[in-house]
């Protein structure tokens, strides 16, 4: 055996374990753990793998609905029924710290990781989306990270052959040095194709498939579970994981083909904590034990120690438990795809995870205790000090703008609002020939056709599968969450659902990525607690269970924590293709309707709290954000869906950052016929009926629950009446003129904007900053 370091208090601390945790480990193994075992516990009990600081909170999420086939936490990803014996599996996951250290590979392997989570479930991944946060773009280091992350996502997704169909990007100082990279993937499968990550069947052989294990990503899970510092980053720099999307595609094809044979008893990807996590979790789920010999694991670097092999996070590897006697099928299929494989062990009956190296035992740990009995903490929480100050803001503190119309171009050119085409044109968002709504509208819509589902057994006749239309969106307004974690988080869910509904979809379920700071800080933990409360309540209200997600804590830079960012990815089902709706104005002469109240008069800040306007024009990240009334939201969503289903809605766009004015402008400028060829469709708007003494609030306030729709002139009246009947305030506010200006009348003010000018700042701002070098 190699000379393993002695276990000292320092070594224990270096592994991120507390003395109490170490005691618990001794109890579990019944003796002093050796160095390898210490490593195993440290990664499995890291926040990233064990959720030790958040598990208690996450219990608050609604996780059930008649559609849930595999619920949150059961497996690598949840599964929802979409009818006709078909199902979807989706999940979001963060790769924040690796991306801070090495943006290209960090983001690329983030995409790779989430795709593996999906095909591990037996589903074929059919689309990806992502949610990104960076510091402000005037900083060249931020630009380097942004450029690297986007090209990393593009590289992996494009080469793998998955369309990246939507996403969001925000820029805020709080993310400087600690960008957020949350990757989401969705897959489809038949009900009877669900695969499980359980080591079932004592005596069944355990296979390792995929490329050899190297020293890359050593203990990445532990790295993700501590503050990002110079030292921790430096450590990680020596172990950057490099992604190989081609390998992953082969791996996916081979796994799906193998699953179709029925030879697989259990399957799990090797993600965070690699071989360690996949072996002990499968054994824990199967209620079995597992024994592997590391000498049989393909290795890329000579002289790797058991500790290194077990903790490596080399990419594109899978663990497969095969029904005894059917080993040949694994070999045949993996050879067909020219993929390395090795039989590395077997399922046992004693509940132990036994790791050998050349026959010699190097670790013995009770699998279930390791996987499921990580310590559970209830952290202290305390309302943050800063809220005193931010809540103090009154409307009177916000001076009226001398030229309110000038703010529109500024907002449209604010990188967080500006078009993200510089990002998504680098992503192949059309591969699989199914993208019905490309990036650039409220939510993406994809068509899933029969050839998307995983293969059937060779001798089974092809089934007749109807096309399905799915919509998805990922959202989070971190500033609102910062200013009010509870309301802001409710609003996040509401916005995700609203984006789906605007596209014609009924929301089915959600996945969340909780990106927060250090949970040991009571103020930061309070943010987390309040945020989870808000998310849970909102998911309940919209009937969208949380089917899985990810927690990423310790997101801070030396100046402090990031804005709390509970990203929510939501998926909806579009009943019929005719219901698919995009956000841009369609035809000249169409009527423009506003669903929802133009201004919420009971919000003392009239929607300006935490607004983009306040940040851009007044340089303040303050105020109480507009409250989110979930019942009203739900009524709006139902009414809008009802209208869409009657066929009268020609376009629908919700109001988010930048309020009514930005939303109207986007309706007029966001249609793209081809590269550099926008279709500008002007409109005349009359807001005189909206009672509001503040023009800035009327134009740029960010009250929730508002959607702009268009209908033909003939159907406008009936649509307004119907919306009212369904309980939603609604009014005709204008007409699509198709001219090259957007004209708005509000009280005595007549404002007019040239659409080419607006389009130019909105469309080109990010590219101009990024191409500056």
């Amino acid at each position: 055996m190699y000379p393993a370091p002695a276990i000292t208090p320092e070594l224990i601390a270096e592994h991120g374990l507390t003395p109490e945790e170490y005691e618990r480990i001794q109890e579990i193994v019944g003796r002093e753990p050796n160095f390898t075992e210490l490593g195993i516990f440290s990664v499995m009990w890291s926040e990233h793998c064990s959720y030790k600081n958040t598990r208690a909170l996450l219990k608050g999420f609604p996780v059930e609905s008649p559609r849930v086939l595999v619920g949150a936490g059961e497996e690598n990803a949840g599964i929802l029924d979409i009818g006709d014996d078909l199902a979807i599996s989706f999940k979001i996951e963060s790769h924040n710290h690796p991306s801070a250290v090495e943006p290209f590979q960090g983001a690329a392997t983030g995409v790779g990781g989430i795709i593996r989570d999906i095909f591990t479930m037996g589903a074929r991944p059919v689309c990806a989306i992502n949610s990104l946060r960076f510091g402000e773009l005037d900083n060249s280091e931020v630009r380097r990270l942004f450029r690297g992350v986007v090209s990393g996502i593009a590289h992996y997704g494009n080469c793998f052959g998955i369309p990246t169909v939507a996403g969001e990007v925000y820029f805020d100082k709080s993310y400087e040095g600690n960008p957020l990279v949350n990757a989401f993937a969705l897959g489809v499968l038949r009900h009877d194709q669900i695969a499980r990550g359980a080591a079932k069947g004592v005596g069944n052989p355990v296979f390792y498939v995929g490329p050899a294990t190297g020293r890359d990503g050593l203990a990445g899970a532990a790295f993700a579970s501590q503050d990002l510092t110079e030292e921790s980053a430096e450590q990680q720099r020596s172990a950057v994981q490099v992604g190989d999307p081609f390998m992953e595609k082969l791996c996916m094809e081979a796994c799906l083909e193998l699953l179709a044979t029925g030879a697989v008893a259990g399957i799990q990807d090797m993600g965070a904590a690699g071989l360690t996590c996949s072996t002990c979790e499968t054994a824990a789920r199967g209620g079995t034990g597992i024994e592997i010999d590391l000498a049989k694991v393909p290795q890329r670097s000579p002289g790797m120690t058991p500790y290194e092999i077990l903790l490596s996070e080399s990419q594109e590897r899978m663990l497969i438990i095969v029904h005894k006697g059917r080993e040949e099928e694994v070999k045949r299929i993996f050879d067909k795809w020219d993929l390395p494989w090795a039989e590395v062990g077997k399922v046992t009956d004693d509940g132990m995870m036994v790791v050998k190296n050349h026959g010699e035992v190097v670790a013995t740990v009770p699998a279930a205790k390791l996987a499921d009995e990580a310590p559970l903490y209830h952290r202290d929480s305390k309302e943050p000090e800063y809220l005193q100050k931010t809540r103090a803001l009154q409307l009177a503190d916000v001076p009226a703008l001398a030229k309110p119309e000038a703010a529109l171009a500024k907002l449209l050119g604010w990188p967080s609002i500006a078009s993200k085409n510089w990002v998504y044109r680098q992503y192949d968002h059309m591969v699989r020939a199914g993208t019905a709504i490309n990036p650039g509208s409220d939510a993406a819509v994809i068509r899933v056709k029969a050839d998307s589902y995983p293969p059937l057994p060779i001798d089974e006749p092809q089934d007749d599968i109807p096309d399905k239309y799915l919509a998805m969106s990922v959202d989070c307004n971190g500033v609102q969450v910062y200013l009010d974690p509870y309301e802001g988080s409710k609003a996040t869910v509401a916005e995700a659902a609203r984006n789906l509904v605007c596209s014609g979809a009924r929301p089915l379920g959600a996945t969340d990525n909780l990106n927060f700071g250090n949970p040991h800080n009571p103020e930061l933990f309070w943010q987390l607690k309040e945020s989870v409360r808000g998310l849970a309540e909102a998911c309940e209200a919209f009937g969208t269970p949380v089917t899985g997600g990810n927690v990423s804590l310790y997101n801070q830079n030396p100046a402090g924590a990031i804005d709390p960012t509970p990203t929510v990815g939501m998926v909806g089902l579009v009943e019929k293709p005719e219901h698919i709706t995009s956000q841009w104005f369609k035809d000249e002469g169409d009527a423009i309707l506003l669903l929802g109240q133009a201004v919420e008069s009971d919000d003392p800040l009239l929607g300006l709290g935490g607004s983009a306007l306040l940040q851009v024009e007044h340089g303040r990240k303050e105020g109480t954000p507009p409250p989110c009334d979930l019942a009203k939201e739900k009524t709006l969503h139902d009414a809008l869906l009802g209208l869409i289903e009657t066929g009268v809605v020609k376009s629908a766009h919700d109001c988010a950052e930048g309020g009514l004015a930005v939303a109207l402008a986007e309706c007029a400028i966001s249609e793209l016929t081809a590269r550099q060829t926008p279709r500008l469709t002007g409109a005349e708007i009359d807001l005189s009926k909206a009672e509001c003494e503040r023009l800035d609030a009327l134009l740029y306030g960010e009250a929730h629950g508002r959607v702009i729709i268009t209908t033909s002139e003939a159907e406008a009246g009936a649509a307004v009446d119907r919306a009212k009947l369904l309980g939603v305030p609604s009014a005709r506010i204008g007409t699509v003129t198709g001219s090259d200006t957007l004209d708005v009348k509000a009280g005595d003010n007549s404002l007019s904007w040239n659409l080419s000018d607006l389009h130019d700042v909105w469309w080109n701002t990010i590219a101009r900053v990024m191409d500056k070098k």
Partner: protein
Amino acid sequence: MKFAVLQFPGSNCDQDCVHVLQNVLGHPTRLLWHKESVLGDVDAVLVPGGFSYGDYLRTGSIARFSPVMQAVKEFADQGGLVLGICNGFQILCEAGLLPGALIRNRSLQFRCEHVYLKVATQDSPFTQAIPEGKLLRIPIAHGEGNYFCDAATLEELEAKDQILFQYADRDGDVTDHANPNGSLKNIAGICNTARNVAGMMPHPERAAEPALNEDDGRLIFESLIAGLNPAPAPA
């Protein structure tokens, strides 16, 4: 007519091509694994987009040595119709079935967006059914679509009317501004001198269904079909 669509391990537009040919246009279509060395009974071969073997060294550099490509070469030599799309175009160039090469986009970035294509000639099995003067709107999605060849080759391409498609603006003008990747003469697609082998960077299979709001790409497949036999009833 019968189509074969090649399938390399890293192909990712293979299913899309099959879908359009078979389900949308109603022609029997087979996938052909890269390790196969016989094409069988086919009228036309599609080399689809993707990343054939990962394409890390140079796009298409390995694919040209695959058994299936040897068969495609023979098929092409005998006058069989071969269309390479995106990665397929890159492979056909590497294999010497088409002149020139596709290098990195001048932006060094992958580009996925719709472009307008001017049809430079109707005199080919790939363009014959496209109405005169019709500007096509079809998406591109590539990182290496910047067509390059030496001056003599370019001269020959022009002299022999081998340029099929050029990137254009909405008025049909072939301008530098309309060029998404820096390719020579805005070239988006070419054919060989015998006019039976063609390659193009844009993806007609992604623009072949009214259901997805666009079907200009269909005209290219319909050209192929029209040339081969009296059209069967579309599905």
